[in-house]
């Protein structure tokens, strides 16, 4: 995975504040340390407002940090902006960032010029990317007629136009339907196999688990931890919840005895079982099914719930 010595992205004690009238300044990023190796796919996982987009903006030189340093491909984002800009590609999620009245081809050709590519080289690259992203047959239609998934692929094509070593993807699959999101993830896997470094921000744990080599958790501007995807997977299964209806009373007491069960609550007809250990959900389901209960479902924890558990367990202070 890592072949060269220096990290692709190196962030040290990075902070970003926004001043507010009459109130103390808002810390969007607080003392963040991060290192991403060459060729790594690194996930940045956090809820909305955690500071993911702020970090991305600083790394792509669109925003200045208040303090600390950030190096992308060895270049300082504050002093060597031109070198940074030439070596990265950015993909912002959402609707904004494309010229909707123009066609996909016109958009990409313009961006190719903005990334200082000679015309012939650029035009060729545009055609390659249009094919690769499956936009070839609609390349001359105005972007405003594109579906959400197509727009996102065009965003990715735009990010790749300069053949960058490092890509920053800011919530690229947000608002996408599952099929489009799955196709998009395939593309990201291809990028990794090409040896590019990818920083991917998301609030979807499953996505982070599926795509990334390592995942950093961020909340309220602070980097809480960096984990392997396996750990994320463990959390997802560890903190599952099982819901069941019309559970006989003796089955309920059996449930309390299952190892790894955190708590059992009954409200009317519905019984909810919280688990705190990996695999406990499976054992709970077995007890329920053996007890003749047929209406059961499992619920995966939300990001916030995982955070609460993880932070609580580690005694981490949240700012």
């Amino acid at each position, binding site marked *: 995975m890592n072949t060269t010595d220096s990290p692709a992205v190196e962030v040290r004690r990075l902070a970003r504040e926004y001043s507010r009238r009459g109130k103390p300044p808002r810390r969007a990023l607080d003392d963040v340390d991060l290192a991403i190796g060459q060729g790594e796919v690194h996930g940045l996982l956090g809820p909305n407002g955690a500071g993911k987009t702020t970090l991305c*903006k600083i790394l792509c030189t669109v*925003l200045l940090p208040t303090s600390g340093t950030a190096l992308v491909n060895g270049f300082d984002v504050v002093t060597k902006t*031109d070198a940074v800009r030439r070596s990265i590609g*950015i993909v912002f999620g959402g609707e904004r960032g494309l010229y909707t009245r123009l066609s996909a081809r016109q958009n990409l050709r313009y961006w190719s010029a903005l990334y*200082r590519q000679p015309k012939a080289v650029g035009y060729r690259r545009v055609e390659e990317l249009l094919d690769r992203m499956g936009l070839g047959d609609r390349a001359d239609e105005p972007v405003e007629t594109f579906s959400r998934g197509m727009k996102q692929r065009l965003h990715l094509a735009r990010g790749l136009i300069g053949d960058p070593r490092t890509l920053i993807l800011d919530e690229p699959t947000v608002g996408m339907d599952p099929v489009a999101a799955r196709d998009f993830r395939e593309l990201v896997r291809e990028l990794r196999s090409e040896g590019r470094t990818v920083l991917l921000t998301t609030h979807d744990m499953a996505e982070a688990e599926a795509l990334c080599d390592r995942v950093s958790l961020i909340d309220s501007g602070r980097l809480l931890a960096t984990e392997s995807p396996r750990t994320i997977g463990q959390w997802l299964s560890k903190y599952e919840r099982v819901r069941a209806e019309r559970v006989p009373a003796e089955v309920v007491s059996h449930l309390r005895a299952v190892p790894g069960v955190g708590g059992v609550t009954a409200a009317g007809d519905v019984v909810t079982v919280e688990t705190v250990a990996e695999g406990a959900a499976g054992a709970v389901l077995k007890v329920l099914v053996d007890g003749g209960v047929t209406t059961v479902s499992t619920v995966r924890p939300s990001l916030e719930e995982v955070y609460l558990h993880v932070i609580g367990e580690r005694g981490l202070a949240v700012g």
Partner: protein
Amino acid sequence: MTGLFWAAVRFQAQSLRRSPEYLMSLVTIPALTIAFLAIVRNSGRDDLVPYAVLGAALMTVWATALYVCGELIESERYGGTLEGLLAAPAPFSVLIIARISLVTVVSFLGLAESGLIAWLLFGVTIPVPHPGLLLLTLLCTAFAMVGTSSIMSALFVLARSARIFQNSLSYPFYLLGGLVVPVALLPGWLQPVSRVIFLSWTADLLRDCLRVESPADAVPRLAVIVGLGVLAFAAGLTMSRAILRRIRQNGSVGYA
């Protein structure tokens, strides 16, 4: 750098073609030629026909600068594409100047339109005794207009509503710039203000090019136009850079 310049020009041409409502000034203002010509014809002053045609043409150029060039940066910000532009290695000022240049050149079509209206509807043709000088003046005017537009595009990003600026900088500048009525007829206390605006020099020189006698002091006057253009460029580019720096620092523009 030239590759980037022409790519931006191409981009602007495509944008204009797909959003023709931008060029509204090219439709509405030449129509004013009809009003001007009717007035001078009704008063039996056909010698003022060049004033009417040139006046409307210059108004078109200025209005296009206000309503199209002024909005260039602001529309990127509003449309969400400004961040992507900032993150690209291309120098922002080259992009803006290239796009403003295209729009400015297109706006000079107003001159052809006004002339055509004069010929078709009123049966007048305007002789051009000094075509070379006229062309040179138009070129210098275009240069100064591009520079002045760069100030507008920077300024309009700061304003809470560019619309107010656009509406209020039209007729006052048609007057102060002596576009239709020479500055010499304005009250004395306004003349110094007018002389700082390149439009007044341009309008006077263009009108002189349409007179039989050779225009006096053509070269110094051209130099003034170019000089004012250079100052405008400097101001506009400085303002743009300051605004972009502000965006990087604060994460937003922060309205004036």
